[in-house]
């Protein structure tokens, strides 16, 4: 099969899976439902690998499906585009997606909405693949909104608890704020270039004598970035992501860690030709500092969270912030590298936390866990690997990918370098805190929970093991030139090959010695932190205290730095107030009364006139006499003059 035949299939398979499960899934057994959903994903993944192999060193492939709509100046096409970037994302989405589907088969086994869950999950993959495989911004937006819907459905999956549906709504609305920004960006692109196709826009940008006003390019890029802040949970639109943890844990792993939230990064990398134009510098700086602030603020909040999933959620926000720092510095390859390794270890950690929650009979508070190390060994071991990887312990994948970003910062922005080191230090602290409190010490739950403690079935442990292996060796993808003769730099070459745009240079650090020094510093820091947290949480056996006993910054951290409260005060309350008072005073009292008043005034004037119509002949004769006199008077005056 040629790539142009494979591509539509990759996209269609999850849709078919969703359709089968959505229509007849209810009458099928759970095993069949799960197998169909996971099966289509696995086939999709294999096809993606095939497509990847053949496109890798060849020309990008475009597949026209159909024209959605044709207007005066432009046409919107349903068209697929396969180059190294989109296929790499496809590999992540389908690969990690398959593992998470497999995990869900065990995790959701006792849920009544089993078939519905897999329908949504497959649907999500379809939307996500539309996002990455589309050949234009329109398709991207299509998928962009699509993943938002699936995210909404899955966050509110357990809808009988109204809290969950509120979290779902919050996620959808915050995403939509970003979407509006993205949409405006699309209109601006359309206005300037007359097309939304990536290739054509890139061609136009790189043509000799291309001119664009600085304001316009700033407008376009900032709009795209606003879109990215919504989907990728950056300040100010990040507060939905921690709430999104209300969904089932595999959802958090798939959507809110590995794939959907990286859509913003994908969008930026995809549009690198725009971000490298002169006027976009300001946008890139904004991106850099917003990312940095998000990274640090989220890390601070994660320090004092006690819900195992909330810690991971803030950790995701923090890592995404770091990715935007990379993008702000123009380190696109480094960002994609970190996206990849992050997908591995964050999916691993989330699935691990799911396994813990499963074992603990739906308990999520780490203060009520402890000592799980012996009870669920596979989960423990893989979770440890995830923790080591994200904390930047040398030789694991996260170490290399994070180092690449930090290395870039060291070269260009010394301040950013130190800030990033601070953020990584925080990452290591809260991750080891989470790990030690959960798996070491004594068991602090109820007897019943202790009795139930068990490792999940093979469908749950197998994905953990595979992801753990990937988290260890993922760094090999883009090894810097220190260890082997010249490093692998595989990913850098890969991207340099056929991702269009001037920003795509090799992401190498110049000097091996500097690289080595930076790596040593980062590695040493991570190791030292792991030792300190070990002493605090294992040797001294301290357990996080209840939130109301915290003070100062600790309290603020536990309260999520009051972001929700501030937004509530600044935006939610005023809109609700406007809605309520507007309906009451403006709509009800002013407009309604105004209209009714107008009607009444007309009625009143009728009343006044009516009094003349008495129906009595003598009255009428009187009026007639007055009239005649009046006429005569008028006549006389008129003729006198």
């Amino acid at each position, binding site marked *: 099969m040629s790539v142009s035949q494979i591509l539509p299939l990759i996209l269609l398979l999850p849709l078919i899976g969703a359709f089968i499960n959505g229509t007849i899934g209810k009458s099928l057994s759970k095993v069949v439902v799960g197998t169909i959903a996971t099966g289509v994903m696995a086939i999709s993944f294999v096809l993606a690998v095939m497509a990847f192999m053949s496109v890798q060193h060849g020309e990008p492939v475009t597949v026209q499906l159909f024209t959605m*709509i*044709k207007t*005066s100046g432009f046409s919107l096409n349903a068209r697929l585009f396969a180059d190294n970037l989109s296929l790499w994302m496809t590999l992540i989405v389908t690969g990690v997606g398959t593992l998470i589907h497999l995990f869900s088969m065990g995790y959701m086994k006792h849920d009544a909405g089993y078939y519905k869950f897999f329908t949504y999950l497959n649907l999500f993959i379809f939307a996500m693949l539309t996002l990455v495989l589309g050949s234009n911004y329109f398709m991207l937006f299509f998928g962009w909104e699509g993943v938002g819907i699936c995210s909404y459905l899955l966050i509110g999956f357990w*809808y*009988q608890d109204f809290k969950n549906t509120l979290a779902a709504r919050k996620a959808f*609305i915050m995403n939509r704020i970003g979407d509006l920004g993205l949409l405006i960006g699309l209109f601006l692109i359309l206005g300037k270039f007359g097309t939304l196709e990536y290739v054509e826009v890139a061609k136009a940008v790189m043509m000799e004598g291309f001119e664009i006003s600085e304001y316009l390019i700033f407008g376009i890029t900032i709009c795209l970035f606003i879109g990215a802040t919504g989907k990728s949970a950056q300040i100010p639109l990040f507060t939905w992501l921690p709430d999104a943890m209300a969904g089932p844990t595999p959802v958090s792993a798939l959507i809110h860690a590995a794939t959907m939230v990286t859509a913003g990064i994908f969008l930026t990398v995809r549009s690198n030709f725009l971000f490298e134009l002169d006027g976009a510098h300001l946008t890139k700086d904004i991106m850099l500092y917003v990312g940095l602030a998000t990274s640090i603020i989220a890390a601070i909040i994660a320090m004092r969270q006690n819900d195992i999933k909330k810690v991971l959620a803030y950790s995701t926000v923090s890592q995404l912030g770091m990715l935007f720092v990379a993008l702000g510095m123009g380190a696109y390859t480094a960002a994609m590298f970190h996206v990849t390794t992050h997908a591995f270890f964050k999916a691993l950690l989330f699935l691990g936390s799911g396994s813990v929650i499963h074992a603990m009979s739906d308990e999520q508070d780490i203060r009520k866990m402890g000592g799980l190390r012996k009870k669920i060994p596979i989960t423990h071991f893989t979770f440890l690997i995830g923790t080591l990887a994200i904390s930047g312990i040398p030789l694991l994948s996260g170490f290399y990918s994070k180092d690449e970003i930090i290395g870039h910062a060291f070269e260009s922005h010394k301040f950013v370098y130190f800030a990033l080191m601070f953020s990584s230090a925080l990452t290591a602290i809260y991750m080891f805190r989470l790990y030690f409190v959960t798996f070491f010490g004594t068991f602090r739950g109820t007897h019943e929970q202790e009795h139930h403690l068990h490792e999940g079935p093979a469908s749950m442990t197998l994905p953990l093991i595979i992801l753990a292996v990937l988290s260890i060796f993922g760094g090999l993808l883009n090894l810097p030139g220190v260890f082997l003769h010249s490093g692998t730099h595989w990913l850098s070459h890969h991207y340099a090959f056929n991702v269009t745009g001037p920003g795509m240079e090799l992401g190498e650090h110049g000097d091996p010695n500097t690289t080595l020094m930076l790596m040593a510093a980062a590695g040493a820091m991570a190791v030292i932190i792991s030792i300190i947290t070990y002493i605090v949480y294992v040797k001294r056996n301290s357990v996080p205290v209840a939130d109301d006993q915290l003070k100062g910054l600790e309290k603020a951290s536990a309260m999520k730095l009051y972001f929700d409260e501030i937004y509530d005060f600044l935006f939610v309350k005023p809109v609700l107030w406007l809605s309520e008072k*507007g309906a009451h005073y403006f709509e009800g009292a002013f407009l309604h009364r105004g*209209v009714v008043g107008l009607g009444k005034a007309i009625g009143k004037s009728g009343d006044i006139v009516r009094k003349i119509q008495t129906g009595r002949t003598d009255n009428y004769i009187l009026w007639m006499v007055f009239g005649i006199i009046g006429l005569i008077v008028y006549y006389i005056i008129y003729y006198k003059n």
Partner: protein
Amino acid sequence: MELLLFILPVFFALSVLIVPKKGVRAYGIIGSLAVLGVVIACMMQYSNDGTVHLFADKKDWLSGITLSFGYDGISLLMLLLTAVLVPLVLVSNFKNELAENRLFTSMVFFMQLGLIGVFISMDGLWFYVFWEITLIPIFLISWWFGAPERKAALMKFFIYTFVGSLAMLAALIGIKVNAASFYIEDLKAVVFTSKAACWLALGFFLAFAIKIPIFPFHTWQPDTYTKSPMAGTMLLSGIMLKMALYGMIRWMIPLFPEAMACIQYPIIVLATIGVVYAAVIAIKQKDMKRVFAFASMSHVGLIAAAIMTWDFDALSGSMVQIINHGLVAVGLFLAVEIIERRTATRNLADLGGFAKQAPKFAFWFAVLAFASVSVPLTSGFIGEFLMLKGLVQFDMIIGIIAGTTLILGAVYTFRAYQLSMYGPVTRDQFADLHWSELIVLAIIVIAVVILGIYPAAITDFVNPSLKIVLETVSTPSGL
């Protein structure tokens, strides 16, 4: 054959009065399907070149009033919407006692007659006559069969819209004074000073603004919607207000291109204010029907604003959205009715948990809710995309303000959906969909999704006609 467009509704409106009570339901549906058949036949016959196909053309009928009836792509699309929605309204009403009522069914057909007349009149006076005819059946439907405390609201509705119509009549006469006849091309040929054109255009605008409704001429709408029986609300929001949007494209702007300079900006601003205003008000409404009434106002405000940009893409988007809104509004009001039938209340605070008891209903209602917030794969998406693009190009700020409908729409729609369907179970029992309800919801959803994937089905059909309408205006008054 086109004459059947008049004959059939009249025939069914009268003959249904002598059909035995048991057969009224089926008779009504068969009749409406017959009309649908005729409309489809007309569509097949129409050579899609964008010109107006006049099937009745008698220029000297009665002192300046001509017998000119015809259609182009735009008219046919509106006819199709009418012909599709009427059977849907009748079927969704199937379970109500009202469906057995001969007078009710008769009025629905009279309504259809008026609507068809509006969309195919190419003579100003006939347009006005049919425009007024539609008011009578809808008023009677709501008056006879509405909620107990309906009378004040309906009087307000009647007077309000009637005043608007009179303004239009005055404006019509104002042009006719200088024109050979009421025939549309004759009316278009009149050239005005821009001041006169503004005043006359305002006459039309008042009629349309009230019907659409555009802020601040909307106060009749929420009350009338909530006090009318469901079928009345559906007819009002689904088709009747589309008459005004159609009127803007066919009459108001082509007749007074000179007025564009003075009316374009103010109308767009008012419509945009309405988009945001209605959306904000919808957020905290307690009555579910009121939520969707304001939602409807917000959506059509956007359509009106997009039409006024008089940009080809925006117009094409607004045609898509007109169809989309017609379908979705009917669906949403049916969803409200389904809940009201079973629980006897529409108060959101008293509802909840139905998703568990009625999964089918939950599913179809959810898709409708998504369609209402214009997500991809539903026709609203393309419509809103093109309309917002037109608005952004017209004026960045207005475009962004109108774009907030994306956000606010999600807020009120999902609030209403979640409060009613999610959360803990509140009723002992809640029956899932009756087949008549299922059919309507399914047809609407499938249509919306198909048009969402392939909106070219609509745009290819209307674009040639839109192009012609657009061109006649850019060369002032057909000179």
